């Protein structure tokens, strides 16, 4: 990425991501590995995030949202682009150079069953970041861990228990306590509530919000459920096959989504109201996300799009453009939705024609090979 993106005042932001790319090589052969293709997991992501704000990232499995998170946390080295954290370019820092920065950013993972060491006591799990960064004496650390347990709503006396003695929601609280232990500025939450029951989900979402308020935290919050993201985010980015297709402040994006994919995600969420549910129009997307090894040409969403126009969407790649009259709401689509909730005419744009059977079959087929 040679061109400079215009970030008016880099000091203002805690995190600036410019043209982020992560390609994984696909190799063939055992000894002489030959690169035969590339998986473009993340392919040009830009965003800025102010301190104290939350960016929600939404998309289906395989859209690159977790890879993006791992690049930001520098668990992976980006192929291209720039990551500026707290005014410092961290894109290609070495493990050694990353060390002090790791104190400033932590991650909370999806599966609270797999992300806690089953053979360590809870106190040791939560205190480990303190130990790694050599903060305080053993007694200090113990006090800090007990304080953290209380902050996340667990009993400080449970210091000596093992993870298996806790329920899923409680384990996720332990994961959050561990992330908080060294007072980071940024916490990257990768699907923190996807594995939890609805009632427990609410507890964890409320906890994350309270912690943000009390400790002035900044979140990158990843989920596949737009409902969940709406509840915690100041801004939302919808990703499809490694690229953002729509970004906006929570309110605007939910009130009037522009990209048909955003519309599809919104309408896919079951509504807890049978009458409303039956009345509404739903876009049910066919098939899975296509393979990122050989993504569809031009607009990557076109094989699944209900508003596909032949000769335009599969030829000409749409750029992110701003919604007229709304600042901070961008979308990448030639034929954006005009009304929400959508009607039948929204599903099939004028000039668009229903794809004939072969096109429809060819698209999902690509993802199985």
């Amino acid at each position: 990425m040679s061109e400079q993106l215009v970030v008016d005042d880099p000091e203002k932001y805690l995190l600036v991501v410019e043209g982020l790319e992560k390609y994984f090589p696909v190799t063939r052969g055992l000894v002489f590995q030959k690169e035969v293709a590339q998986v473009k997991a993340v392919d040009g992501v830009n965003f800025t995030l102010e301190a104290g704000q939350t960016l929600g990232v939404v998309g289906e499995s395989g859209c690159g949202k977790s890879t993006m998170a791992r690049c930001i946390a520098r668990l992976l080295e980006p192929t291209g682009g720039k990551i500026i954290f707290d005014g410092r370019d961290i894109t290609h820092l070495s493990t050694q150079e990353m060390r002090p920065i790791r104190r400033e950013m932590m991650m909370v993972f999806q599966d609270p069953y797999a992300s806690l060491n089953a053979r360590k006591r809870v106190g040791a799990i939560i205190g480990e970041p303190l130990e790694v960064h050599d903060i305080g004496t053993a007694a200090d650390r113990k006090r800090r861990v007990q304080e953290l347990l209380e902050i996340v709503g667990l009993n400080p006396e449970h210091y000596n228990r093992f993870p298996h003695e806790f329920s899923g929601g409680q384990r996720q609280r332990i994961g959050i306590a561990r992330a908080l232990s060294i007072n980071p500025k940024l916490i990257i939450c990768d699907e923190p509530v996807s594995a939890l029951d609805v009632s427990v989900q609410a507890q964890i979402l409320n906890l994350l919000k309270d912690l943000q308020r009390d400790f002035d935290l900044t979140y990158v919050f990843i989920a596949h459920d737009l409902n969940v993201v709406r509840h915690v985010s100041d801004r939302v980015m919808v990703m499809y096959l490694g690229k953002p297709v729509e970004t906006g402040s929570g309110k605007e994006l939910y009130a009037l989504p522009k990209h048909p994919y955003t519309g599809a995600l919104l309408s896919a969420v079951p509504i807890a109201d049978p009458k409303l549910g039956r009345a509404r129009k739903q876009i049910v997307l066919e098939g899975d996300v296509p393979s990122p090894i050989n993504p569809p040409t031009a607009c990557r969403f076109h094989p699944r799009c209900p508003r596909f126009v032949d000769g335009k969407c599969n030829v000409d790649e749409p750029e992110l453009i701003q919604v007229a009259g709304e600042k901070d709401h961008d979308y990448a689509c030639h034929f954006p939705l005009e009304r929400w909730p959508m009607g039948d005419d929204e599903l099939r744009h004028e000039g668009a024609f229903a794809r004939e059977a072969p096109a429809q079959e060819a698209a999902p087929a690509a993802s199985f090979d």
Partner: protein
Amino acid sequence: MALLEVQDLHTRFRTDDGIVKAVSGVTFELDRGQTLGVVGESGSGKSVTFLTVMGLVDPRLAEMTGSVRFDGEEILGRTSTQLRSVRGKRIGMIFQDPMTSLNPVKRIGWQLEEAVLIHNDVPRREARRRAIEVLEEVEIPRADARIDDYAHQFSGGMRQRVMIAMALINQPELLIADEPTTALDVTTQAQILRLIGKLQQEHGMAVVMITHDLGVVAELANDVVVMYGGRIVESAQVDDLFEKPEMPYTWGLLGSMPRVDADVERLEQIPGQPPSLLRPPPGCSFNPRCPYVFDRCRTELPELRPAEGKSDHEFRCHLDDGDRARIWTQKQAAMAGESAA
């Protein structure tokens, strides 16, 4: 006569720590062609109820009493051999995790054919033809080629389709789906729910949908039972339940769902944890977490009683009708309150 009639079902597991009362006195009926949604948190007994119904609980580990009638016939207490004519043939089952439910070292075609061959005296060629047919029915593209693939070659949503195909291959009268979409993306979930609805209409099956997500129930079910601590705490027709739920636990479940259609600053949360089934609290099992608890709740278990003017809407709660109506009106306002749109 109802297709499935469950009467006063109890399942108690004997463990080293004591007796776990996983299911305590569950009673419900399901007619042909209907969909029953069963809602509850982890540990509410919803899965164990249906494992007991299917005869999948080991009688050496648990004591099971009550009655389970399928098409008029008592099936509780039957051995696996005796159940063979029912299970997999007249009752199909889908489990939550499609990866662990499929055999990773056998081609999916082999697994589907096996399901046919166990129950029908047909040649393997015929079983294979039937397997391809059912894969097409669950909308797997190029079914005739995909049938020779292994489970790991399918995506999560496609694997769940294979599971559904396997459950449907003998054209069951009843399909029990235990959290069939919990591990999936919302878009894939929408596909699977639509598929189950479509297949149900085509085959006239009865469906039991076990889930923790009230949204899924609203989408698919005719009747709903809400389970808590091994008991049914509320049961109603789906529209009635969402219009005027009568039990504080159901209010909590509804309030804790983040919604696209409303902007709420803070979600309502049900504090605490589901009750221990080893040592359940005395009285109403929801009383330790209930915001409206009073003395009677701590000592006396509320019986299921019908809601005002609705004989098929039953619930367990000591609060009187006036109080409950008032609280629900307030809740409704709070849930929709700040909906900016």
